[in-house]
């Protein structure tokens, strides 16, 4: 079946079965590989994207459910690493292997949208869906605070 999708402001028509997870459509059909596969069962957050601004696990979202919505992936966060979270992530040297970081940053972006000045507890609550096997958690916390500062000037 053909589905029309809006990803990072661009239109794509993809051929897939309706139950195909959005994750694989984004990666294989559209070719945006920043969104990662980690578990496929909504337990690691590596596949986190935004759908209409809401944090969503793309591994458990059917492509058919994403039609007509605005999908944002890590590639759509900014053109040039200029999003406050990206600046903060670079300044704090957050990533190690980096594999989880697209998901971490997308989860953090959704958090800051809702709560521009989150506490440690807010961060822990919002970010505990995302596993980082490298253990970058303390820098993730710092970088979210820093991004909040940057965003507020």
């Amino acid at each position, binding site marked *: 079946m053909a589905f029309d999708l809006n990803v990072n402001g661009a239109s794509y028509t993809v051929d*897939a079965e309706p139950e195909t997870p959005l994750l694989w459509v984004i990666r294989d*059909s559209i070719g945006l590989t920043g969104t990662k*596969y980690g*578990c*496929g069962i909504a337990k*690691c957050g590596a596949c986190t994207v935004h759908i209409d601004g809401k944090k969503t696990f793309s591994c458990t979202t059917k492509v058919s459910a994403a039609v007509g919505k605005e999908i944002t992936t890590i590639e759509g966060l900014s053109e040039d690493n200029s999003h406050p979270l*990206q600046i903060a992530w670079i300044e704090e040297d957050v990533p*190690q292997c980096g594999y989880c970081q697209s998901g971490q940053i997308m989860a953090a972006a959704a958090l800051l949208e809702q709560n521009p000045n989150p506490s440690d507890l807010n961060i822990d609550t919002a970010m505990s869906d995302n*596993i980082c096997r490298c*253990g970058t958690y303390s820098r993730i916390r710092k970088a979210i605070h820093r991004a909040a500062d940057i965003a507020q000037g």
Partner: protein
Amino acid sequence: MTNFEMDRRKFISTATSAAGGMMLGFHIPAAANAAAIMDEPWMAGEGGQEVNAWLVIDPDNSVTIRVGQSEMGEGVFTGMPMLVAEELQCDWSSVKAVYAEANRNARQTAEPYMVAAGAAKETDGVYQRMSTGGSGAVRRSRLYLSQAGASARERLKQAAANAWGVERSAVSAENGMLSSGSNSSTFGEFAGAAAAISLESEPAIKTPDQYTLLGKSVARLDTPLKVNGAAVYGIDTQVPGMVYAAVEVSPVPGGRLASYDFDAVKDRPGIIAAYRLGEGGIGSLNYNLDEVANRVTGIQSGVAVIADSYYRALTALQLMPKQWDAGEHGNVSDSSIIDSALEVLANPDDSTFNPADSVGDARGVIADASSVLEATYVTPYLEHACMEPMNCTAHVTPDRADIWVGTQNPPRALSVAAEEAGLPEEKVYVHNAFLGTGFGRRLRQDEVRQAAAIAKAHGEPVKVIWTREETTRQGKFRPYSTYHFAASIDADGKPEAYWNRIVSHSIFNHQLPQYLQEGIDGQAVEGLDERLPYHFPNKQVDYAIRDSHLPVHWWRSVGASQNAFAIESFIDELAHAAGADPLEFRLSLMPEDSEFRRPLEVAAKEAGWTADLRRGEGMGIGLAEAFGTISAQVAYVTVSRRGQLRVETIDVAVDCGNVIHPKLVEMQMESSVVFGLTAALYGEIHIRNGVVVDDNFDQYQMLRINEMPEVRTHFALSGGDKWGGVGEPAVPPVAPAVTNAIFAATGKRIRRLPIRNHDLTG
């Protein structure tokens, strides 16, 4: 399949690399060329002058440094170039990093001058050591990378000296500029001439007091690629004409696919083919527990389904009727394996025990002692749980094979692929990607053999991805281990005699039996034999091997990962039995000149060590040496009356001798604490009917941000010639530091991991 235009258009081109060999590459968009690292890290830039195998200098004076180690988070794309740049004295801001080529390493031996300088001692290959493991990146590459930088610098100076008619000693090289008197020029201008120069003798490398770059926490070069999705991991490989494979092999290692019915799914959309894997199907080396080579990378019996998208392949694979024959291990469970090891452990006269260390007459003293403390400890099988599920992309043609994979050992991947493809090594190209962690798992290459076999059968490029479940079930596990300790305690609490028996699944016996020494797996008794930090007048350590049908493998920090839990807990038990402070007690068992003292004292001091805390609060100590580095840790925990455990802080003191990048070390300490704490709290692989059941993160739990303790790293460096590893040594002390702290808080002694199986309510 799709009707969109790929925005990042790529095409395979055959280009001549700077190495003079043909390499398969992609066209790189101009913008990416400006980055310090290409998003596809196997891609060398174009142009530039190679001065030696490790470095290329462009006319614009930027320096591309080739990295032989694998970037899996530990920072080698920053640390390795720093080692070269320190000596080269180029401008650090002009440094780019790229992977060294395994293919070239297979074709070319080390430069004679590098060998003559005593810097190239690791292997015969031009890139020396391309395997990343054993926490060896700095300590085992430092000499040859430093020499490569120094030798290039002196050649640049000589080339300039020749042109300017002065002595080499009159030319200085700083910040990428050569100068002498009124003459001044960039490195880039003399790179070509420098490459042709041979020196009478090679320069000495710097001593740590001369460093100007090393020791600084410069920004990681890979970070900008890892905040926008640009970094390409093996699983992200895109090759024109590529198809996708989903695979399922016998869930019981060594079992067999009895039958499958491809006809039932072959008409589904996008389905292209199916191949039987292993016995009776494709592959040149089948899995077989009886033969060493076969059990290391042999192809497990199963099936691959090929489709035009991964999800189509996976769905068809899952829907396809399949029948499995579990074989002789279909009744095995984790408890049956460990229970039979415990039976051996309980029988000191079992004939399969071999002595790993023996001083005095421990058995005799213990037999006669009036007071003896005994305890048994158990650690389970664990899986690596790499963040990136296993995958490999391969293209095998009759005269060339290409492998795209994130691997910890490209030369080994190359030789496995060459064997499977039936090609000589020089015709195989391994394009190493960023690794979504490795932890030892990606040294094995079983996924490479499987993908090469599928690609050879299929003819087109194939990307093989294992689901998380398949990745876990086809894990290569950290062995279980069981320990029995007995110590005599004299009237003033001193242990006169110490006797430790260990029964475990042996990694050496599984894959490198030639490394066993008189029945002893040196890794299985790491830190327990003569490497034990504590001195006992009488000491006996015995070891026996009891393997199961599970394939086992190195897992971050290997034997120390579990041995430290056992010994550091038992030492704690001895301290409490003696009524002594656990810190004082440990120090009392160490020789005066013990290297373990300082890290232990630093960790204790920084943590504000005290045994005098309220109920529900506790501090605990863990100590271990691994890969030339000592790490001492003090954990502070709280346990509520309802048994809720919180690990509040962990103070880590580390003596790795010298440090080239303090922040990378701190990252590794934190990372190791998270890794060790995950295992201590949750890690346990269950086996039912021969099959690993905890196959995804819902059951195989990982530490999350809300459980992250505050980790404080303290350098207790002894300097000198000591260069220890940092990727692994801080894993082992975590578990005992936490369980000893739990004992201090609750009086409950945890002797079997993981902690979550224990009721801590008070």
